[in-house]
């Protein structure tokens, strides 16, 4: 046989090989989270939770190979827009998973939902996107931001506290937090303190709390602010006033707060001690892989991966059939770490909420533990404003 013909044939075969590989479709996921700055801890949990799920599924989602691209939004909304456009345009992702913060979500919402990719938020869940501005391509595996605060409001109301004092940082999420609490708490609000965003020393506010003598104290003080507030609250001897909070004593802050937070109450849709087999396996695997106790952030990211997995299986692996994938996503046919999980018409979850308490485990690590269920199959109040049905 003519050697040149053979060489030509071999070359032709080799050049076609990439096309051969491409016939085996890959699902591309772009993860956008805050991975630098003080909030990096939360972004890290989201990235790790998602990657753990993919690893558990053998590197595949819905039977297809997965390619995860991680982008850091630096907590800057306009940087997030550039990164997301890169994920959509350059990397051709099928799913954008993220972000951590509400203001970043506001920025990337339009670019993603107007593209062919689906946006799945494992943390931020603002009210506008649950209501009037809802979108068929947007799904949330966490909750609507107000709901967690409502858990504490209902608890305080049921417990019969006559007076409370509220505190939050002076930004939109802070205002939403106190509004959510007051939706269920009908007692007397002695004062609403709004602290400058990023303030770390609360001695002035703590003195005010002591002077006001409320029956309970509710706060939303995420990240480093919460770490400091809890420590200083104890140091000021205010531990006898029940400390109710949202996102203030969770797995992202407990390692720093340690004993100071033990006994403080929070609200959540899950805790690491939740009693079902998939959750227990998840907590064990996460701790083995990353050395820290997973919080709801990691859990929701894990569920996001499982959601995609279930949806792709439901759509028969046909990534290109967006309608089929969308319908399958809506069905939420996957085993959530929370047990039961379903979407409301606005693609926000309808789920149970619990009162949780910060505790020290036997092995010395800190986690939140479930005290009681506060809401059953709880949908967010904005769903009625959403036109998707």
């Amino acid at each position, binding site marked *: 046989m003519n050697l040149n013909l053979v060489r030509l044939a071999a070359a032709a075969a080799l050049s076609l090989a990439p096309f051969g590989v491409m016939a085996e479709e890959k699902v591309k996921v772009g993860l956008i989270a805050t991975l630098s*700055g003080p909030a990096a801890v939360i972004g890290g949990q989201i990235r790790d939770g998602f990657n753990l799920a993919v690893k558990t599924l053998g590197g595949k989602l819905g039977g297809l190979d997965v390619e995860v691209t991680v982008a850091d939004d630096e907590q800057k909304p306009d940087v997030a827009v550039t990164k997301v456009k890169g994920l959509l345009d350059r990397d051709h992702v099928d799913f954008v998973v993220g972000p951590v913060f509400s203001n970043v979500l506001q920025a990337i919402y339009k670019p993603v939902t107007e593209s062919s990719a689906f946006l799945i938020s494992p943390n931020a869940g603002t009210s506008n996107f649950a209501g009037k501005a809802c979108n068929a391509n947007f799904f949330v595996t966490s909750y609507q931001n107000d709901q967690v605060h409502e858990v504490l409001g209902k608890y305080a109301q049921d417990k019969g506290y006559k007076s409370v004092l509220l505190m939050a940082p*002076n930004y939109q999420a802070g205002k939403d937090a106190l509004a959510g609490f007051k939706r269920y708490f009908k007692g007397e609000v002695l004062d609403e303190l709004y602290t400058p965003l*990023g303030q*770390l020393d609360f001695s002035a506010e*703590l*003195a005010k709390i002591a002077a006001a003598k409320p029956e309970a104290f509710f706060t939303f003080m995420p990240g480093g602010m919460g770490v400091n507030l809890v420590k200083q609250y104890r*140091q000021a001897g*205010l531990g006898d006033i029940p400390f109710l909070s949202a996102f203030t004593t969770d797995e992202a802050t407990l390692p*720093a*707060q340690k004993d100071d937070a033990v006994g403080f109450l929070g609200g959540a849709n899950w805790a690491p001690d939740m009693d079902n087999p998939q959750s227990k396996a998840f907590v064990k695997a996460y701790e083995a892989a990353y050395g820290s106790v997973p919080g709801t952030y990691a859990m929701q990211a894990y569920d996001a991966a499982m959601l995609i997995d279930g949806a792709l299986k439901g759509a028969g692996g046909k990534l290109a059939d967006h309608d089929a994938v969308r319908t399958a996503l809506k069905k939420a046919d996957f085993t959530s770490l929370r047990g039961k999980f379903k979407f409301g018409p606005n693609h926000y979850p309808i789920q149970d909420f619990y009162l949780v308490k910060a505790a020290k485990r036997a092995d010395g690590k800190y986690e939140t533990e479930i005290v009681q269920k506060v809401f059953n199959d709880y949908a967010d109040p904005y769903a009625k404003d959403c036109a998707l049905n």
Partner: protein
Amino acid sequence: MSLALLVVQVLNGLQMGLLLFLIAAGLTLVFGVMDFVNLAHGVQYMIGAYLAAMFVAWTGSFWLGLALTLPTALAFGLLLEFVVFRRLYERDHLDQMLASFGLILFLNQAVKLIWGAEPLSVPMPDILSGGVRLMPGLLYPVYRLALIGVGLTMALGLHLLINHTRIGMLIRAGATNGDMVSALGVNIRRLFMIVFGFGAMLAGLAGALVAPILSVEPGMGDNLLILTFVVIVIGGVGSIRGAFLGALMVGLIDTLGRAFGTQMLRMALSPAAASQTGRSLAPMLIYILMAAVLFFRPSGLFPVKR
């Protein structure tokens, strides 16, 4: 509003002010004597806090940890001086800003790499971990009172050092006219090194002292850096006395504004408007203070006359 509450809030303001003074003192000296804009002063504060967290965890003792932190912070400051800052003394302020900004980026990231992104905490030393019941329902932590004590002692010590020792005289002379001091035969390079190292150590000390009450995390020095610059601008660059007064002013006005601002506004406005205005104004107060000071004294309260 009771007298006890007022006393507590004033103490809070004093404590914040004195802590700011510790950090500002180093910065104003570096700026005043060496005419050097060191934006990385904030990360030196952060490094002090991280070193304290590390040493206290290793040795199990707060005092031992603190004792180890001081020389290490000093050594680290000298290292930075040797590697980066030494080459920039003759340069434009803007180049110094560029280099120190780069240092901030690098060290914030390095700290995250070494110690992780999660906030760290340092346990309070046992003898200082109690509280004093200054008003019903509130324990004022003994540790904060100790901080006030340390701050005042350091202020006195610095005053004595600057005004009554030979090295202090050299520092004051260097701040007024560095070239002349050099011409008079003083090893100006060595003086710079000492000033820089000392300033770094003060910042590191502040970071270490603050670790038991504030969380230790990457970027903790950034916002404080801005506050520190506000302080030295109000006080006048190069003046320790100015830094002291500026820091106290900033600490008291910020704390008392947050504590009583809304209440005072309620005398003139409706509760909702007072609350809204109060929250918006609170973080702006120190900047308004600085603008007001600069309006009347464009070079700060105690400018060092060159």
